């Protein structure tokens, strides 16, 4: 179990990802001319050395670390419960982005502003409803009438336009 947690140490995973990212840059820079490749090669090599150094230091620390076994099961389960919030936040953000392409920016914004406070445990429904409507309306007004910007309509917006143009 102890060895398992050492391998899945978040610092190590993060540094490994950053190392892979830097290595990809180093490999990709091989195809460029000398001027274009000079800085990327130099910087990616230095960064890789620093990342390897950080990983080595971290491994050394983990090797010498004695795990605190006194942590109770309750504490662990509470931690796991709390850690789900970042997951909810991230999933809703990605869904927000993906749904822009289907439902359009305005409708997704309204749904997001109404749903996320409730998902995060805010129970004052009236306030959530009123602010959600007001923020979306304000945003729509500013973008449409002041900025004259085209907001992504999504597939639904295009379909709706097609439907109304047919009538």
């Amino acid at each position, binding site marked *: 179990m102890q060895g398992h947690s050492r391998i899945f140490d*978040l*610092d190590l995973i*993060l*540094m490994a990802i*950053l190392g892979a*990212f*830097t290595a990809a*840059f180093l490999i*990709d*820079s091989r195809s*460029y*001319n000398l*001027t*274009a490749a000079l*800085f*990327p090669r130099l*910087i*990616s090599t*230095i*960064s890789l050395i*620093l*990342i390897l*150094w*950080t990983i080595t*230091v971290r491994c050394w620390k983990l090797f010498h670390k004695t795990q605190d076994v006194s942590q109770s099961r309750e504490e662990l389960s509470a931690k796991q419960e*709390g*850690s789900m*919030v*970042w997951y*909810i*936040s*991230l999933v*809703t*953000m*990605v869904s*927000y*982005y993906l749904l*822009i*392409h289907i439902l359009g*920016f305005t409708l997704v*914004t309204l749904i*997001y*502003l109404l749903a*996320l*406070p409730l998902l*995060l*445990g*805010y129970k*004052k429904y009236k*306030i*959530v409803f009123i*602010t959600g409507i007001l*923020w979306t309306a304000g*945003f729509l007004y500013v*973008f449409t009438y*002041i*900025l004259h*910007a*085209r907001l*992504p309509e999504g597939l639904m917006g295009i379909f709706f336009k097609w439907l109304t143009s047919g009538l």
Partner: protein
Amino acid sequence: MWYEGFAIALQSHNLMYLLLGTIIGLVVGAMPGLGPLFGVGLMLPFTFGMPAATAIIFLASVHAATAYGDSIASILINTPGGVGSVASCWDGYPLAQQGKAGMALGISTTSSFIGGLIGWVSLVVISPLLILVALKMGPPEYFMVAFMALSLLAMASTGKVAAGLALGGIGLLLAFIGNDPITASSRFTFGTDYLEDGLPLVPVAVGLFALSQAIVLAEQGGTIAQIRSVGSIRQGFGETLRRPFTIMRGGIVGILLGVMPALGLSSANIVAYLVEKRASKNPETFGHGNPSGLVAPEVAKNSCILGDLIPTFTLGIPGSSTTALFLAAMTMHGLQPGVNFFKASGPLPYAIFSGILLAQVAFFLLGLFFARYFAMAVLAPNAFIVPMIVFLSFVGSFAMRNRVEDVLVTIIFGFLGYVLSKRDYPAICLLLGFVLGDITEANFHRSILIGRGSYLIFLSTTISIVLFTLTILALVGPYLVSLGKKLLTRENRG
């Protein structure tokens, strides 16, 4: 002439537009990601029908108030209002958490006002001298300035030097995405058209600091202020005035970076913060609510935005994208910026400069008045604030270029920023590298071309030698001082 200028600026319709510009600037500035560039760009078309002085005064008030308003979100919700106020989060937000949001906003308002005054005095009095220095700077000197700023990475990576430097390196690599500045060959785009222009700064900064903060706040629950208090705004006023040396340092950094084209708002506040931390006797208190850590970037930010205007007015060369819009507005209204700006246009330039000064006063007074109401945001539940931050971050990222892909960039950097903050890695190093990457690389190659392949070009002028020496001294100075102290103690013991 100055009397006439002030008389024009104080006319009722000019004052009305000044007030309107300040209110618009405060609202735009308070939104995450939307800085002075967005505010001035948004308002530029509305100035078409205005008289020249009114138009520039209106834009100047939007410019000053947006830069100030940027700090409101930085302090209250740890979300940079724009790229110019990233450093205001680091000590401003801890103060808000300690129940001193009012004090932090008081510091921000007073420091921004003082920074504006420093910038204005520089603009009016010492701009010819500053321009003389700026004109002598070529690619080798700019490379040295960028190198000097990069040396601050070691300072920024608190306790995790190797990881901080590696993150700085990754920031530099991200800045290399897009067309190479010399040969224009496409790099690291991995076949996507979106990356041809490089990664946009606003979505990266908003993701790293705003979105990551939204996730942290969602996890924390409760309210931002751990004590149900917002503190006194007047206290912030006193805290700022008690730090004349911090104000001086911030002002110098802001003006110098503002005068230099391409180096501006995005780097001034970060550099001023790190310089202040280095100069401090208690650097360990930075990041935990040290008022000096808020005063320095705030002064630097507002002096920088006026420093940006110096080459615009005196040479007709815009110091940044925002001042390029000013240049467009001036040309549109028949004004001729350049060396003869003061001589050829009668009392008009004096009216514009008076208006710029009044713009500083306007945001100061409105800021002081509204700060208490803004500060109440820290008492609202996080579950209610988080969706607003996410929504405003997405809107801020999207609005700059009207591209939905920018929202995805914000999410990716938001998650990265969250992981980095969770493991106590300094995300600022990544941003510093990202901001300085272009300038460093382009000026390095240009210098080598000018020097026909010789690296001695970097030490060929007095300015670059001075900059190089200062960088080396800043890097090894603290170690030399501590070594000297140890030797002295040993001798005394002996």
